[in-house]
């Protein structure tokens, strides 16, 4: 069974808007979490879940499905928003994020949350997992794609580069990775903390097919995925220039909103802005 994919990009943009609202509501209800990065990956996530991914919310473990590895697991609120809007569970459940007995853990947990393809949270591990999924797909003669979302600070982890070598060595062209390149991490800018540039040349020299796009342009994200699928024999890196906190004026490009929840007043202001978009 092939789940119908929605190629109406205006719907994708609507979903991205709704997901941003969900994210603020989730994190505000939880009283902790990571709004900045969640808002920066929202358009990537919306394009995947509402345009590109071949998935079936009624059958989350479907063997032929495309997979998503959220390597930067701390932006779980964005993933949960996508899953709720896609119908894996109710939107109301989002408000249980990080609470006792919730199936929505602080970081993605495949054992608890329907639609989470693998548990993540400790940074740097997702690409290795994605490679394993892609190798299994190849062995099983499946045609699914494995999408991975990495953070720019995250690629300071050495394992990312071990995995980047493996993706190329094993010619894993069904691995399509996104770098959420917002330039900020907990302690400051990438450049201040540990320079990651030039990211495109690094991945290219590791044997990857690299594209650089605006990570808030859903049409560009969609087109980049199509381009990646045309590429044979190399893993794909789509570097997405993003803005941390995108959509909420007082959160945009502010390091402080990496891992801080808005209070009630801030949440109300953020929601007002997001609803007006």
């Amino acid at each position, binding site marked *: 069974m092939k789940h119908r994919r929605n190629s109406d990009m205006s719907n994708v943009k609507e979903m991205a808007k709704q997901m941003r609202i969900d994210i603020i509501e989730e994190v505000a209800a939880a009283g902790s979490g990571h709004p900045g990065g969640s808002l920066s990956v929202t358009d990537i996530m919306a394009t995947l879940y509402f345009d590109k991914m071949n998935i079936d919310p009624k059958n989350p473990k479907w*063997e032929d499905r495309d*997979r998503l*590895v959220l390597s930067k697991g701390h932006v779980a609120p964005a993933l949960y928003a996508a899953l709720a809007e896609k119908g894996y569970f109710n939107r109301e459940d989002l408000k249980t994020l990080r609470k006792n007995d919730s199936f929505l853990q602080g970081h993605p*947990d*495949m*054992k608890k949350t329907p639609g989470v*393809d*693998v*548990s*993540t*949270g*400790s940074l*740097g*591990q*997702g*690409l*290795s*997992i*994605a*490679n*394993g*999924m*892609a*190798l*299994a*797909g190849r*062995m*099983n003669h499946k045609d699914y794609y494995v999408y991975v979302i990495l953070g720019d600070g995250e690629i300071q982890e*050495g*394992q990312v580069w*071990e*995995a980047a*070598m*493996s993706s190329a*060595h*094993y010619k894993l062209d069904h691995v399509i990775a996104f770098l959420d390149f917002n330039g900020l991490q907990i302690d400051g800018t990438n450049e201040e903390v540990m320079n990651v540039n030039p990211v495109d040349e690094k991945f290219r020299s590791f044997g990857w097919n690299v594209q650089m796009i605006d990570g808030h342009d859903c049409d560009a994200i969609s087109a980049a995925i199509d381009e990646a699928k045309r590429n044979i024999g190399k893993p794909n890196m789509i570097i997405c220039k993003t803005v941390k906190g995108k959509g909420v004026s007082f959160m945009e490009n502010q390091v402080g909103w990496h891992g801080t929840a808005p209070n009630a007043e801030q949440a109300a202001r953020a929601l007002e802005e997001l609803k007006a978009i």
Partner: protein
Amino acid sequence: MNTATREAYGNALVELIEKNEDVVVLDADLAHATKTLKFSQKCPERFFNMGIAEADMIGTAAGLATCGKIPFASTFAVFATGRAFDQVRNTVCYPNLNVKIVGTHAGITVGPDGGSHEAIEDIAIMRSLPNMSVIVPSDDVEARAAVLAAAEMKGPMYLRMARVASPTYHKEDYVFEFGKGELVKDGKDVTIIATGLMVPKAIEAAGALAEEGIDAQVANIHTIKPLDEKMVVECAKKTGRVITVEEATVYGGLGSAVCEVLSDKYPVPIKRIGVQDKFGKSGDADKLLEEYGLTAGKIMETAKELLRE
């Protein structure tokens, strides 16, 4: 006969090519040493050399496991459990994935390579992880049986293999029972609970003790986690004295596991033989065992001491 457990591991993997088509094997540039080489030659499409990148190897194994494969990820015990600990913890054990981690060259019998390569802490750290099972085969027959059994069981598992050949004491038709201790020799005065290469030493010690009129029983604990608590308690009740023996640090391994159970359920005097909070070093394996007190003689001496107390 008298084959290293790592050799038996490599041979068992070859058997699994036919027996279980979901089994895949990963290595980190040590296929010659871990003995996954034969599998890689006979079944290259199910073998992945990940290069000298243990963290990536474990992560890749986890990804394979999410898609129904049964990965056996192999490298030296010190790297499998140390270098890749966070990957084992967060990406294998936390989501309870079906990954078999096989650490060869465990303990001080690595010999010439020295302390940097001699895992003494692997049992302790793997035992501390929820969902993880820990298996230490005591000879080649048991190693083969344990590997075949592991392929049929779900969940994360750490299997500890040795570099050096050791005496085979099991018969060919030996049945490996996961989570069950094996009473190798019956006795009434003291129980020697051993694991891995120390089981043959314990058998040797029990034989020598018999000549001196001491009736020691020997239990082989191949599954350190989950521990056969019932058997451990029965041993304590029967003999009233227990000695544990392992080629690993006395902190956190078999000895600790036995103490945890008996202190809760049936406290008796216990002596723990193992590596006494120090690293290994280079040298001949047998001489190192002498130096570190991991010999039949040391077990005998400890038994007599315990009986005098």
